[in-house]
């Protein structure tokens, strides 16, 4: 493995690691979500004995995105490593 291939490998591993760290940081959800349910209860709601839930726009990084990025990175890294291989001259 030459110097360029090592750099490609390191970058590939770093991208995959960051992707998994992001996934864990976002709560380890299986599917990526763009909305989250938030419970709300006003003073009047309390008197009426009810609780409401509303959708709030938010982004939650899921395992699906993590796996897609991992796949793309592995394929791209593999191609780069193949292209940057030492060509033997006979």
């Amino acid at each position, binding site marked *: 493995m030459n110097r360029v291939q090592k750099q490609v490998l390191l970058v590939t591993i770093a991208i995959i690691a960051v992707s998994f760290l992001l996934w864990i940081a976002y709560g380890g959800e299986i599917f990526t979500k763009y909305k989250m*349910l938030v419970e709300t209860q006003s003073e009047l709601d309390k*008197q*009426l004995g*009810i*609780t*409401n839930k509303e*959708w709030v726009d938010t982004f939650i990084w899921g395992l699906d995105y993590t796996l897609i990025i991992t796949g793309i990175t592995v394929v791209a890294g593999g191609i780069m490593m193949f292209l940057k291989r030492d060509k033997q001259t006979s």
Partner: protein
Amino acid sequence: MRFIFSVLFFALMTFSLSAQGFNNGVSGEKTFTFFDKAGRNQATFFSTTPLEDINGTANGIDGTVSFDVTNIAKTIKGHVKVEVNSMQTGIDLRDSHLKSPNWLDAETHPEIRFELTGMKDVKSEADNKISGTATGNFTLHGVTKEISVPVTFIYLKESEDTKKRAPGDLLGVNSKFNVKLSDYGVQNDIIGNKVAENIEVTFNVVGTVK
């Protein structure tokens, strides 16, 4: 002795009658509507799959309930309906699958309906709060079954606070019950996941006086 028994009997009758309804100084027949232009009334549902939990909401709620305030058990009637198309789970693809012919089939069965026929085990928990078991016909996916669900009613007389939501008296209705999907002919596969057989449904609605 006969006098004491008469007084005791009268007191017992008075207590048992008041326990059948609200004791908040309001009397007579009242009708409440659950339609809320702002869409604040909602039913929420919760289920699980092997991969994740599913939380959802439905805000397309309409219906009415009417009763004699002091004798709810014997006079209550009404209905609540939920628009299937108003259901949301937070993932658009899952929402469209939920409404598709394979699941709730929103096109053929656009609403889920509960036709209230009576109420039993009515208990007065406060002057303006009663709980009991509502009985009625629940229709989902075109299949109707008689069910009994626990329900709590809280009656608020019109005040400056209640006017912020709507004019007139308000009725808070809360109920939580399980729906078994196979009872209503609903397949429980959703985007490759097996959804739990029982869906937990919670109703949080406020009725405004008609």
